[in-house]
């Protein structure tokens, strides 16, 4: 069976990232670790509060796996190729550089996201728990926000060690200190919540469910996250097009 040339190149790129036992391990692991949605829902007296707790990254195992898989793909596969210069063999393939970038981006970032989305939605459907769909949307935006930041760091600094340390430091600072900042903003009266809610919207979600109030500034934060994600994406496209080995 003959496939088109683009498909063959894509399958080479994809198979390099997901070798034989990776998908067989990752997809069932993601699915089974969604059991924590049930456990938190039960623990939280069958309220939305427990479901939101179960969807916080680092507490939710499947979200963390998706994030870590994409981080490994970006830094230790693509970044390593660029650092060692073995990306040249891909660049010499008869394909435009921008198409090559989209193929790499798809197999690095979008493929783990699709795995997470399908397993989580299937689990929600089978378990019958009323999960509000904005949780999925918030994680989606946050996922692309962080992965695009990591991609632009990896394309700028190239070395795997520096990229790992710097990206984990930056993402950790954004998530943890952003959460603390939101917490103090909520306690001491909100003036900057529209800006800080982009750093960690989960604190505001928990506040909303506990106090039965609605905070419209979450949407401002989400819009800001989308803007930053788009900016870093365009930045990394430009970096990749002008890449010199």
């Amino acid at each position: 069976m003959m496939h088109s040339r683009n498909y063959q190149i894509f399958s080479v790129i994809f198979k390099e990232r997901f070798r034989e036992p990776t998908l067989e391990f990752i997809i069932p692991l993601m699915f089974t670790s969604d059991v924590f949605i049930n456990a938190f829902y039960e623990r939280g007296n069958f309220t939305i509060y427990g479901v939101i707790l179960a969807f916080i990254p680092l507490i939710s195992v499947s979200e963390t796996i998706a994030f870590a898989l994409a981080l490994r793909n970006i830094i230790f596969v693509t970044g390593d190729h660029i650092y060692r210069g073995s990306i040249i063999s891909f660049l010499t393939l008869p394909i435009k550089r921008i198409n090559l970038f989209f193929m790499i981006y798809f197999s690095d970032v979008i493929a783990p996201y699709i795995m997470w989305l399908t397993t989580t939605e299937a689990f929600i459907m089978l378990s019958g728990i009323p999960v509000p769909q904005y949780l999925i949307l918030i994680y989606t935006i946050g996922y692309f926000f962080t992965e695009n930041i990591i991609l632009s760091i990896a394309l700028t600094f190239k070395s795997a060690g520096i990229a790992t340390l710097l990206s984990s430091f930056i993402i950790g600072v954004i998530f943890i200190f952003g959460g603390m900042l939101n917490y103090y903003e909520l306690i001491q009266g909100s003036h900057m919540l529209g800006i800080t809610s982009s750093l960690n919207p989960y604190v505001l979600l928990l506040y909303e469910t506990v106090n039965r109030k609605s905070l419209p500034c979450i949407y401002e934060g989400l819009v800001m996250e989308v803007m930053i994600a788009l900016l870093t994406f365009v930045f990394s496209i430009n970096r990749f097009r002008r890449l010199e080995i």
Partner: protein
Amino acid sequence: MIRGLLLSLGIMLISLSLLSITSPIYNTVGVSKPYCISIPSTAKVIATVYDNFTNVTIYVRIIHGNYSEIVRPPYVITLTNGKWIFEIYNETYPETFFKTVNETIIRKNEIIITQKTINFTRIVTTTNATYPVYVKLYVKCMRIFKFQEIGEILGAIMVISSVFLYLRKRF
């Protein structure tokens, strides 16, 4: 790749649809405002309504769909699928009042007026919730899948088809 994936997904679906979370969970909720809880069909919950006061008689109304019952704690009920509301129907308790009374005593030529405080009790029946009742929820077990049969059937189909694919490759 597709064979291994089908096999692992099938085993996972079958095992998840057979398993359930069985570690018991206790939660105690104080009810003064109406307390509303929605139970999913996957959970088995036993609720115990009780109060801590000896001289207060509390009646609690339990509403579930069209079913409504007025009970006196302590009371044990198994909660089935759906929305349950616990609210206080009425409370009866003795209340002590103090009253100051002027007492006039006439003795020979002098009149003595003394003030005296009398306390007396009255039985009060209100619908206001002055004393809370407690609802102790005991989650006995919770199934992981609501649609267990679908999970089992899908898992079995996946395992069988992966075995079939292995055999087809082999022979």
